[in-house]
């Protein structure tokens, strides 16, 4: 992603895409996830920058500190990263093997962007954890995570379900449910040191 705006005079060399335009495209897709409508934007102009940003943010917030007990703590940065990308690839392969009409990168794009509500939930949980611990604290976090989980599932199903033959929709949607459930579980059980 590069530097100056295009100028009509520079036809000789290849003009790089301006940074702001890419960021705007990513932001527009975020809006499409937050307010899911029947729209093809996520699928037509897929990109993987948004999922990468979200995945890195989530992994940074979820990782345990290196000072803790190595044995039984939460996931490391690399583990979260691998779970998200490996999970998304597996779901995409599953969808294509079942006969889906969606392309590989389109599916990765949708799954990655629909992690946005869960990333928001992680931010909220981190803030809530700054207050004193207790059952109320846990209830608030549980409520936020459940709502965001439902939002993620609704957003991704809206985009993905139509690409499957009608008698296999449930088979393609179930792994998505499992994927976001595992991520929600990791967010809910995050305990700071």
């Amino acid at each position, binding site marked *: 992603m590069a530097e100056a705006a295009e100028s009509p005079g520079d036809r000789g060399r290849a003009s790089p895409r301006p940074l702001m335009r890419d960021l705007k495209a990513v932001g527009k897709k975020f809006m499409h996830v937050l307010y899911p409508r029947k729209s*093809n934007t996520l699928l037509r102009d897929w990109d993987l920058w948004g999922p990468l940003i979200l995945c890195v943010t989530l992994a940074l917030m979820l990782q345990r500190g290196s000072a803790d007990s190595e044995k039984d703590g939460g996931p490391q940065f690399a*583990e979260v990263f691998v779970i998200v990308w490996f999970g998304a690839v597996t779901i995409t392969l599953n969808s294509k093997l*079942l*006969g889906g009409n*969606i392309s590989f990168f389109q599916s990765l794009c949708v799954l990655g962007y629909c992690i946005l509500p869960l990333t928001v939930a992680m931010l909220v949980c981190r803030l809530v954890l700054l207050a004193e611990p207790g059952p109320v604290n846990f209830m608030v976090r549980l409520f936020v995570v459940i709502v965001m989980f439902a939002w993620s599932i609704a957003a991704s199903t809206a985009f993905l379900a*139509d690409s499957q033959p009608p008698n296999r929709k449930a*088979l393609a949607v179930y792994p998505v449910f*499992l994927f976001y459930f595992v991520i929600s579980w990791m967010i809910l059980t995050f305990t700071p040191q």
Partner: protein
Amino acid sequence: MRKLRPPRSAHTTEKQQNRQSNSEFGDAATSLAANPDVTTISIEDPGETPKHHPGPPRSPGREEDDELLGNDDSDKTELLAGQKKSSPFWTFEYYQTFFDVDTYQVFDRIKGSLLPIPGKNFVRLYIRSNPDLYGPFWICATLVFAIAISGNLSNFLIHLGEKTYHYVPEFRKVSIAATIIYAYAWLVPLSLWGFLMWRNSKVMNIVSYSFLEIVCVYGYSLFIYIPTAILWIIPQKAVRWILVMIALGISGSVLAMTFWPAVREDNRRIALATIVTIVLLHMFLSVGCLAYFFDAPEMEHLPTTIATPNQTVAAAKSS
């Protein structure tokens, strides 16, 4: 004079489907829905399973046909299994044949694994020379997370009152659970298949299973452990062991009834030893998971943790 259209073979229908998948998102779905008959005009062997029928579930009539076809018909089954996978193994279509199941078929197979009926063979009745990898793979994935999450929850609830307990998510146990479960779901069928092939060379068996059918049976037989793992959260030893017995009974009987016809022609001792080994391995899996992922509910600790706050309160009051 009208030119006769040549019959469409299965090959052109696949090409058509690929072309449709490259077109615009909205169009693909509508054109597939609008022209189901276009993709299914084909002259194929009557025995070959039609791949492009997105119609309503045909289970009642289909089950009847399958019952008539299905008793001890391993020759025809092997032939059909050979005919089905016609694409070379380096193409994507080859692997798509292992995911050629509809939602209702997966549900039927899961139901079959939960309700073992004596005399009804799971493979003959439900798999019908269409073994799928969807069920085994996703049932194992769900089981991995069910065991890891339930174990974590159960430990948390058991140690809830203790002052020295600090909750940890125990994330490493997920990878351990995944290794154990996937290894069981692939290696045990592999060794069982190898063993059955070896015995087949010595003793002529009427019934023989392909490797994928064995993987399929094992995968679906693990389904009962998902609700069992969730119920293992209850911190009562008796409840947990009763659950182990029930789950082992159901899935063990599915496996035993599936593999008994494959070994009954053999030497009686070997046949019995095979069935006993299958059930024993299944038992080791469940008991091992219970022991490793779920802490023992220490009944003696609960009264003391309830007593100590009272004592401290009493001590505070008296001072």
